């Protein structure tokens, strides 16, 4: 069960108080730590145990995903704007994907949640109260796994994957012309910030310097506990629940003007 608990004021118009039958699981960690690989593995593993799974991640909302990506291609996206844009993306997925899936009994796997956004904002000097206040609408997950690897482990993985990224190297605010120098400085600061946040929100710490197999086993052992009292539900059955709930909410949506 996902209890209905928010970090602050919650969502406008959300009145349900009884727990949601699904499970809300978040994987957090810095660039190159192996989150997406683990999510792909976990998804298959959870499905093989008889559950329906939905996965989601930053910038994937129908409303704002494209807008953020476009804004990030340019050089004009400011700090406050970026954070509010990410918050818009987050609330759209929370209201349209995560909560409906939890209500229909899915296990929701989320590649990064509000914590990554908060960590990045804090490293850039955003007001710490402000950024936490914004996410007062965020539903508290059932479990947050923090994949942690130190810089020497991260660098080869990032290079193997897609190279250093402008934003993930902090090139938008650090005084370096070189991506490598910027990446090292940025990720060092980000890791320190993440460690503090992990403490604040009591994440489950997973050592991600070890092999993919080892990390996966650690994760499955923990997730088994989260799923322990959950009734298996086939993807087909869960999808039917989801469709029915959506069909019920459609008439108001279709009201013509």
């Amino acid at each position, binding site marked *: 069960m996902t209890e209905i608990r928010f970090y602050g004021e919650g969502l406008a118009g959300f009145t349900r108080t009884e727990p949601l039958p699904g499970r809300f699981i978040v994987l957090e960690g810095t660039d190159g730590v192996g989150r997406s690989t683990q999510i792909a593995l976990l998804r298959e593993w959870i499905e093989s145990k008889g559950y329906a799974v939905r996965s989601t991640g930053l910038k994937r909302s129908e409303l704002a995903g494209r807008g953020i990506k476009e804004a990030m291609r340019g050089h004009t996206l400011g700090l406050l704007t970026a954070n*509010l844009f990410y918050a818009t993306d987050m609330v*759209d997925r929370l209201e349209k994907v995560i909560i409906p899936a939890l209500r229909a009994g899915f296990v929701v796997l989320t590649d990064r949640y509000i914590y990554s956004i908060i960590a990045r904002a804090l490293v850039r000097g955003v007001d710490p109260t402000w950024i936490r*206040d914004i996410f007062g609408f965020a539903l508290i997950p059932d479990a947050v796994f923090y994949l942690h690897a130190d810089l020497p482990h991260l660098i080869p993985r990032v290079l193997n994957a897609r190279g250093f990224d402008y934003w993930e190297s902090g090139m938008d605010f650090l005084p370096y012309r070189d991506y490598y120098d910027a990446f090292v400085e940025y990720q060092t600061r980000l890791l320190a910030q993440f460690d503090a946040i992990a403490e604040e929100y009591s994440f489950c710490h997973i050592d991600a310097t070890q092999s993919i197999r080892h990390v996966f086993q650690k994760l499955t052992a923990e997730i088994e506990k989260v799923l322990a009292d959950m009734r298996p539900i086939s993807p087909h059955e869960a999808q039917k629940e989801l469709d029915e709930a959506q069909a019920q909410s459609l008439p108001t949506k279709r009201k013509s003007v």
Partner: protein
Amino acid sequence: MAQLPDGRALPGKLFIVEGIDGSGKSTQLDLLRKWLIGQGYCVAFSEWNSSPLVKATTKRGKKKRLLTPTSFSLIHAADFADRLERQILPALKAGAIVLADRYIYTAFGRDVARGVSPTWVRKVYAFAVKPTVAFYFRVPLEESLRRILSGRPKLKYYEAGMDIGLSDDPYESFSLFQSRILEEYDKMVDEFGLTVVDATLPLVKQQEIVREIITPLLGGALRAEPSAWREVLAAESVYGRYLDEVLPERSEP
């Protein structure tokens, strides 16, 4: 004095106008802008929901009806943040006069009318600059409805507040929604010290009142270079036919 959230004063002046649809605030701001430019001031202008980075997303959300009260609130905050970061704040730091058509109080009114928590939305906008003067053009609901609805316009879904299901009839929904916003505005007068202007007065009278209030506050505001190109034209007796291509606004004095 325009002020940062931490209380530090900015050299520029920020004048903003608020009011429900049909209060005539945009007309008043436009008159004020022309007058200030005529007086030789350097004037920047910013309009609600106009950020080039964000407005495509807002438009998409409205068109496809994807917006909920919370996402509606956040995307408008993103739009405002972009304009604050790139237009409003730099101009104020430079000492210019900034005029804004709608400001954070529009979000407080509309979002709360949609059911968003009043404390949350105020926290979301905690980064906003405190205006030098915030004018609130107060008009009775019936009068604003008469002005807006007399032409039987086609009301948009979110504009009419249809998303919160107050009524299936767009005109009735719009009226109910506007009355809720009006209630919020009235609460904000004391909370934020809004300067109320009676928007039922004749246009010219309202403009007089606005100018009277801001005139003593203009000391030290940045002045624009009085059109130097005019001197060149006069000295060389040329017409300046290619100037339109390079001057953003070739307004006659």
